[in-house]
C-alpha cells in the first residue's frame, strides 16, 4: 500500500525541510558576509540581504548579525524557525520525538534571543547550527526510508537548489541536486526513471528548472 499520509502533512513535511534548509543556508551566507563586513567589504551584508529582497542597515559587524538574524524582516531567524516549528507541529505524528524536540528547541533559541534583547554574538549561530545538524542527523539515521522522510528531503533539496541558483551560476553540482530531486519525485509518484530524464531534458534555465519541479510537486501532492 506504501506510505499513508495526508496531503496536509506531506505539504508540512516538505515545507519543514525547506525552512530548516533555508535557516541553515542563510546562516552559512551570514557567516560569510559577517567575515567580510569586519574588514573586507562593509556592504557585504547589504548585498546578501538584497538577494532576499530585504533592505538591511547596520554600522558594525555585530550589528549586522543582529539585524540579519533578529531584525524586523521576513528572513529573520525567529520567523523562519517559527514556520519550521508550525510545520513540525502539524506533521508531528510523522516525526520522531528527537527531531521534533530539536526543531522546537531551535525556535526557542531564537525566541529567547528576541525576548532578552541582548546583543547577540556568533555563539547563537554555532548553537543553531548544532541543532540543525542534529535535526538532519535524526532524519538521516532512520533505517527504512518512508515517504514522510522523502517529503522532508524533497523540501531540503528544493531549497538547496533554489539557494544555489540564487548565489551561483548553473553548474554540474546544481544538475546533480536537480537529478536527485527528480529521483525523489519519481519515488513519490511511482513513475519510471525514463520519464524523469524527459522532464530534465525539457528544463532549460534555472527558472525553467524550478518551474518544472514545482509543477511536478503539484501533481504529486493533491490537496
Amino acid at each position: 500500500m506504501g506510505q499513508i499520509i495526508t496531503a496536509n502533512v506531506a505539504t508540512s513535511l516538505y515545507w519543514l525541510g525547506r525552512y530548516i534548509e533555508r535557516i541553515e543556508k542563510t546562516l552559512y551566507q551570514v557567516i560569510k558576509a559577517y567575515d567580510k563586513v569586519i574588514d573586507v567589504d562593509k556592504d557585504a551584508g547589504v548585498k546578501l540581504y538584497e538577494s532576499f529582497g530585504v533592505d538591511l542597515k547596520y554600522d558594525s559587524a555585530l550589528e549586522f548579525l543582529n539585524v540579519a538574524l533578529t531584525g524586523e524582516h521576513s528572513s529573520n531567524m525567529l520567523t523562519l524557525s517559527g514556520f519550521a516549528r508550525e510545520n513540525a507541529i502539524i506533521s508531528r505524528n510523522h516525526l520522531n520525538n528527537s527531531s521534533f524536540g530539536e526543531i522546537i528547541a531551535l525556535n526557542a533559541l531564537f525566541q529567547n534571543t528576541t525576548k532578552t534583547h541582548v546583543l547577540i554574538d556568533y555563539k547563537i549561530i554555532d548553537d543553531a547550527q548544532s541543532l540543525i545538524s542534529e535535526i538532519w542527523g535524526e532524519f538521516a539515521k532512520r533505517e527504512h526510508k518512508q515517504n514522510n522522510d522523502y517529503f522532508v528531503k524533497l523540501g531540503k533539496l528544493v531549497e538547496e537548489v533554489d539557494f544555489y541558483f540564487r548565489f551561483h551560476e548553473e553548474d554540474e553540482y546544481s544538475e546533480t541536486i536537480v537529478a536527485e530531486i527528480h529521483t525523489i519525485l519519481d519515488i513519490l509518484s511511482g513513475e519510471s526513471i525514463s520519464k524523469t530524464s524527459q522532464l530534465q531534458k525539457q528544463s532549460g534555465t534555472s527558472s525553467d528548472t524550478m518551474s518544472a519541479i514545482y509543477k511536478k510537486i503539484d501533481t504529486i501532492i493533491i490537496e
Partner: protein
Amino acid sequence: MLEKETELHKKFWEIYSKQDIKKIKEFQTYMDKFAVNFNLYKDGNFIERSLPFDVIPRIISKQEFNKIEKGLQQRVHALNLFLEDLYSDAKIVKEGIIPQEFVEQASGYLKEFKGFSPSKKIRTHINGIDLVKDTVNDEWVILEDNLRVPSGSSYPLSIRDTYRKIYPDFFEQLKIEPIKEYPSFIANAMDYVNCGGINVVLTPGRFNSAYYEHSYLAEKMNAQLVRSHELVVKDKKLYFKNYNGKLIRVGSVYRRLDDDFIDPTFFNPQSLIGVPGIVEAYLAGNVALMNAIGNGVADDKGIYYFVPKMIQYYLGEEPILKNAPTYLPYFTKDKEYIFNNIEKLVIKDVAEAGGYGVLFGHTMTKIQLDDLKKIIEAEPRRFIAQELIEFYDEQCYLNQELVARKADFRAYVVMGEDIKVWQCGLTRYALEEGNYLVNSSQGGGFKDTWVMEL
C-alpha cells in the same frame, strides 16, 4: 490533609533526598521541548501554553491499585451493558430501575440511534473515570464517568518519559509499574472493532486545546492523524484521502470531537470539523467510532447516580468502588434533603463539564442559595447534589517549596476484546491551597502516578 506516609513513600523520599533538585529545571526544558501543551482560548485569542506539572509523583500501592482496577473493570463493563441495553430493549427502564423520563431528558441520549448496535457491541472503548481518595473513610470514591471523549492520557506518558531521562534512579531502585503500553491498548481496541480499513485519529485541528495529545497518541498508535476534510464518505464507506489523491478505506476512527460536531449532515449543520456522511457509514456498520455515538447519556451526571444500580442489575454484583453520596432533586425525598442541607453540599449542573457549573454551598451567600433553590425547583433534572468529599492533598513542589494541594485521579480504562485498566493515570492538582477544582481547564496542573510495590 496528606495521606499517611507508607513504606513506599519513605523509599521515594529516601531517593529523592539524594537527587539534585536543580535538575528540575531540566524537566521544564524537556517538557517545553516536546511542546507538552494544553492550549486555551482567552478573549477570543489562541494561547499556546504548557500544562503546569509537578515532579513529585502520586504513589499508589499495587495492592491498593488492584482493587481500583477490579472496581473500574466492573463499572465500565456495567456501563457498556447499560448503553447497549438502553439503545436496544431498554430493559433497565422497562423494569423501573431507571425512570424513563430521566433517560429521555438526558442531553446525551440520542433516540435516533435506538436499534443500532456498534461493532462487537462495544460502546465504551476509552473511558476516563475520575476518583478521589476520601479522608474520612480512607477509600477511593468515584466522582465522574467520562465516556465520550476523555482526554489527558498523553500527559502522564510524557512526564514519565521525562522522569526516566532526568531521574533514572527511582526506576532503577523502585518497583514502579511501566506505562508505555497504553497507546497499544487503544490500538488493539481499534483493531478489534475495526470494520475493514486503516485506523485514524480524528482531530478538530491544530488549534484544539488537546492537539498535542491527538498527535502524540496517533504517533504512538501508528494511526493516521486526520482532520475532517481529509476523510470522505462514498457509498456509506469512509475513506482516507492520501497525499496522492488515492482513497484508502478507514475501518476505525478514534474521534476527538463530540457527537454534536461529528457529522454536519446528521447533527449540528454549522459544524466545520465534522465529516459529512460519517454517521451513515457508521449506521451501515462500515466503520467503528470510538467512543460510540450516544454515550453522553451514560456519563450524564444524573445517570451517574444509577451506576451502582446498573452494576447490581447487569452483573448481579455489589459495586467494588462507591459513588460519592449523591442526591437527585428529581426525587422529592432527595430534594427535601438538598434544600435542608444546601449550604454543605456541592451542586452540579448535569450539562456542564471541565469543572464548570460546580457550586459549593459553603461559599455561597443566603441570597445566592435561595436563588439556587428556586432554579432547582424549576429544573430538578438539571442538577445533582453531592456531599462535599474531603479528599486527600498531595505533596507538590511548587515555587521551590513542598506544599499540599488537593488532587484527584483520572483512571483510564480501555475496552476491546477485554477491559484493561492502565497502571497509571492523570493526577490533577489545584494550583491554589484549599481549592477543590483541579481541572486543567480551571488552571490545574498534573503529576505522574506511580503504581508501586515493595
